[in-house]
């Protein structure tokens, strides 16, 4: 009898620890990707300058004044953003891509991956979050990079997939306003 209780308790504890570690892994993927970029390319992510914040806030307020709903993609408060500005992204991008995919393959689905020239890379990863999705967008150019993670509704995900380039830009703008 005692044995059976012990086994049940152990099973519950094991399941709890697995679910905690999985959710921890998902939460930490954003930070892991930022760290991976920093280590691979020897760069550092930065916060936004005061002027940039002011300018972006003005864009957001302007959009709201025009009567449109400015926030098009991300759910309120769900955005994480890391920016790399005016830094050299020198390195073998094929190796970087492989490392990135290897790191995220267990919890994320790679939806769109594009590489242009030798220094422009864009990645969109997606994972389920109940009836919503979490998107992880990584964009690296010769001298700048952005990592955005956001929870989006299915309609926003569809918009992002229909026009990934425009969607990534909009997400970045939303993220910079959200982070203020």
């Amino acid at each position, binding site marked *: 009898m005692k044995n059976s209780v012990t086994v049940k308790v152990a099973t519950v504890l094991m399941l709890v620890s697995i679910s905690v570690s999985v959710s921890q892994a998902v939460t930490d993927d954003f930070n892991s990707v930022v760290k991976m970029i920093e280590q691979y390319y020897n760069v550092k992510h930065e916060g936004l300058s005061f002027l940039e914040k002011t300018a972006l806030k003005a864009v957001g307020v302007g959009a709201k004044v025009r009567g449109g709903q400015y926030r098009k993609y991300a759910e309120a408060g769900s955005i994480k953003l890391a920016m790399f500005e005016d830094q050299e992204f020198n390195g073998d991008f094929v190796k970087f891509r492989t490392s990135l995919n290897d790191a995220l393959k267990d919890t994320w689905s790679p939806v769109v991956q594009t590489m*242009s*020239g030798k220094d422009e890379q864009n990645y969109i990863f997606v994972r389920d979050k109940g009836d919503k999705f979490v998107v992880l967008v990584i964009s690296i150019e010769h001298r700048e990079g952005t990592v955005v993670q956001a929870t989006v509704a299915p309609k926003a995900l569809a918009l992002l997939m229909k026009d990934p380039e425009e969607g990534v830009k909009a997400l970045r703008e939303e993220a910079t306003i959200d982070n203020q």
Partner: protein
Amino acid sequence: MKRLFRKPPRTPLLVALLVISWSCTARAQDPKIQLAHLDHLAAKATETVDINIDERLIQITAKLFKDSDIDEVQVKKLIQGLKGIYVKSFEFDSDNNYSAADIDSIRSQLREPQWSRLVNVTSKKDGNVEVYISLVGSQINGLTVLSAEPRELTVVNIVGPVDLEKLAQLEGNLGIPDLGIDPPKKKKNDDQ
């Protein structure tokens, strides 16, 4: 009276055999092809596009196409039954950057009896465009387009029922590149 020699139960064995045969059949008929071995070409390419859209994402995206726009309605109808869209495309700044082995790695997966090459489909683009369909009975359950130009290699793998005559409408949507495909030419008898 106890039986000294009981026959071993056959049910688990039968179930195992059924599962094995089902999984073999399912694998044989799965029209999703492996494209990962082309990834090494990214190192030589000037432009690389890699799209992986599964059934759930297709259905979510399908809802976004407007019912008020005739073109969008057509695309919506086309993609609604699809189970996956997979694209790999590489552009190079010079010739001979991919090998015959790269092409063969794709062609070797497109063998009969599951796959049939369509000979009556042409492309406006230069180079060699091959279109293959996967059939289950008389139903198309997958399509692969292999476009090999001197400076461009593109493979599009669509899983699910595809209307060949409307294939061109999918170009430019959901990451499917412009392949310049002309729909299959109908025989005179078909028009009657």
